[in-house]
């Protein structure tokens, strides 16, 4: 019974990781192609659907961590997924005026390269039991460039979207109501920007530590 379950787990994770890998490769391909053919203003429209699908699928990873299907601590994955979903849905999808900004291109390219490497890395591990050393190196080195470019793009897009968020009443909940709750999208965006200040060094530091661990381990083998 345990062997069957373990096999099912491996099959499921293989399908999951390669499926999401395909999604992100599609995003990368479309982004570069559209940039070349039509210019940065049109990149969002070209990548919107595969981006939303691939990024939202990551919610499953919280579930994987909670039920113990994978070993990653959810404290590391939650802030990452949180910021990704926030940018994808609350900013990009909900603020049409920001969709033609050039930072969308840098954002989408940073994300799709990182995620294509990450998902193929996990996909290989599930199928082969290990990942080739060049992929290991890519997984733990490209973030050195792509985290700063990605995070700057995220912060920039939220910042430039602020005036449009302020004007709009979207997602805002006003008092009075029977649950005595309110939500102001504009101030939440400012809070989100604030969280990047401790959040980014924390995530980057975590990846640096992971890099040290992973690359020194492979040297010993």
């Amino acid at each position, binding site marked *: 019974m345990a062997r069957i379950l373990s096999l099912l787990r491996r099959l499921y994770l293989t399908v999951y990781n390669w499926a999401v890998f395909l999604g992100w490769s599609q995003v990368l391909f479309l982004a570069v192609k559209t940039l070349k053919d039509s210019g940065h203003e049109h990149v969002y429209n070209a990548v919107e659907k595969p981006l939303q699908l691939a990024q939202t699928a990551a919610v499953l990873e919280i579930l994987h961590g909670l039920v113990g299907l994978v070993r990653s601590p959810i404290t590391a994955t939650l802030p990452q997924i949180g910021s990704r979903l926030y940018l994808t849905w609350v900013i990009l999808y909900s603020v049409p005026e920001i969709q033609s900004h050039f930072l969308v291109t840098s954002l989408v390219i940073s994300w799709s390269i990182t995620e294509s490497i990450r998902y193929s890395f996990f996909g290989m591990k599930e199928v082969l039991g290990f990942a080739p050393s060049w992929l290991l190196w890519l997984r733990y080195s490209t973030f050195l460039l792509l985290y700063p470019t990605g995070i700057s793009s995220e912060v920039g897009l939220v910042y430039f979207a602020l005036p449009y968020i302020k004007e709009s009443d979207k997602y805002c909940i006003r008092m009075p109501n029977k649950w005595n*709750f309110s939500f102001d999208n504009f101030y939440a965006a400012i809070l989100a920007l604030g969280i990047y200040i401790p959040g980014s060094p924390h995530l980057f530091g975590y990846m640096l530590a992971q890099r040290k661990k992973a690359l020194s381990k492979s040297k010993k083998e």
Partner: protein
Amino acid sequence: MKVTVVSRSGREVIKGGLELSDSATVADLQEAIHKRTKIFYPARQRLTLPLPPGSKGKAHFYHFLGYKGEHIKHPVQTYALYYWCFHYFKRIMETFFVHRFSHATSPLSNVFRNCAYYWTFGSYIAYYVNHPLYTPVSDLQMKIGFGIGLVCQLANFYCHILLRSLRRPDGNGGYQIPSGFLFNIVTCANYTTEIYQWLGFNIATQTVAGYIFLVVATSIMTNWALAKHRRLKKLFDGKGWKT
């Protein structure tokens, strides 16, 4: 025409008044007020005209903190204040006179973490409970909520008394299996009663902020309770363990 804007207490809200054209509408007046005061956009204004002479009441254009209508204070808001302060007063007294700690000190960094936690949630909840547009629940619901809260706080106090008696005053800490009262049902009855007293508070005050606080506090205490239960199980390995 010159328009004076005055609060109910008679204070001029806009010094020197406003100059408006003779054909100006109320909407124009609201815009002009908004321009001068910045924070009072039209939806936050309630304007009334002075009453004709001889009629009862006072002449007023009025504003109150920019919110429409009177500032009504509900009894539940006062009770919530008393309840909240009583809860933390009780905690402080218990810390001094009831609890026996296995470690008499804790790291300084805890001060920042704990204060951030309590003060952030305290202000987040207080903002909504004391909001000018706060909507109270029914009188019955409020009474039930505070009733549950007070009963559970009493039970919680008794749990603390029982836990205290497990350790000697000179004591070197150490762990014992608690028994009696609710400890016959759950290992950490003190946490159980604490959780339910916050539930009572929320039933009475009904804010999303309060319920978020309840969820966070419950998950923290649940983690502690599970850890303590595991620790006791390992220590006592089946001995003295009632099922």
